[in-house]
């Protein structure tokens, strides 16, 4: 936290898990002066209706942010870096034929 932030203005980001094994998903944030109150408020905002299996409560200042467009949105065409650029559907069908297995349901996708 920058020393300039008064305790009362500290923000905590809350991540929640809806069911055991699910990924932690950002739920939102709460304001609280310390970890203990942040935990209570996170529970009230993101768990009081039994909608969460688990919460992560993270002080916002602990988060490293990257939003530099030079790093995230380079100006050149990058479509060849997407997996969609490689069509493997027909190769897959041919491979299955060779292996003598019936096409699985998802083969048509």
């Amino acid at each position, binding site marked *: 936290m920058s020393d300039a932030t008064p305790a*009362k203005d500290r923000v905590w980001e809350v991540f929640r898990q809806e069911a055991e094994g699910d990924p932690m998903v950002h739920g939102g944030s709460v*304001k*609280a002066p310390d970890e*203990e*109150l942040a935990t*209570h*408020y996170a*529970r*009230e*905002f993101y768990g009081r209706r039994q909608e969460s299996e688990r919460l992560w409560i993270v002080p916002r200042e602990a988060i490293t942010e990257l939003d530099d467009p030079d790093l995230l949105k380079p100006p050149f065409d990058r479509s060849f870096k997407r997996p969609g650029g490689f069509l493997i559907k027909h190769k897959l069908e041919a491979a299955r034929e060779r292996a003598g297995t019936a096409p699985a349901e998802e083969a048509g996708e």
Partner: protein
Amino acid sequence: MTELDAQTQEALAELLLSMADDEFVLGFWDSEWTGIAPILEEDVAMSSVSQDEIGHAKALYELLAGLTGDDADRIAFGRPADGYRHAALMNHARTDWASSIARRFLYENADAIRLESLANSSYQPLADLVVKMRREETYHLLHFDLWLRRLAEGGEESRSRLAAAIDELWADAQAVFAPLAGEARLVAARILPETLETLRARWLERVRPRLEALGLPVPAAATPPDADGRIRHTEEFAWLHGEFTMVVRSDEAATW
């Protein structure tokens, strides 16, 4: 357990009513913070805790209604103000935040001790309900202890307001353990495993050191609660009663 005789059942009804009314009236008082609590997050927390208490009251009123063949909504909303049996601690109107926190600290600890004991009640429906209530009350206890500490350590103004509130509420807080008319029967049947006076002594053993540890003045007097600790009411409660029965009174025959 075997069938309850009429007098034991009457005593059990009195116990259930006293617990339900404590939760119900306190839930309504603290719901008055909705919209005006010190910070938005606490507004949601206090409102949520108040709803929990109303939920506990509902479960207790339903248990009582099943026992006496009455209706839970009728018991909750259909009595005149002088028919309520909450402890005198719940007679005080909402004033400042320190006062609400002081009351919560005193009450949550008393309630915790009452529920700890009743978890061993021979009346199984009550013991079962108490197990569920305690899971929510654990959080209440933590939350208000946290606030007690913050107000005690937060500076001269919060500390002096808190100390004044504890002093003002101290005598009426004893009334959570005011004797019940049928108490001896309940203890004999182990419906109430220990006397209320035993529970009060335990509460004092827990609350006093906590206040001392925070450097708060511990009120000296701990005179036992008077027998009418759950019977005498105030004008302030009469006002609250008018508030929480307003909708019912507007059309008593209405159905949901």
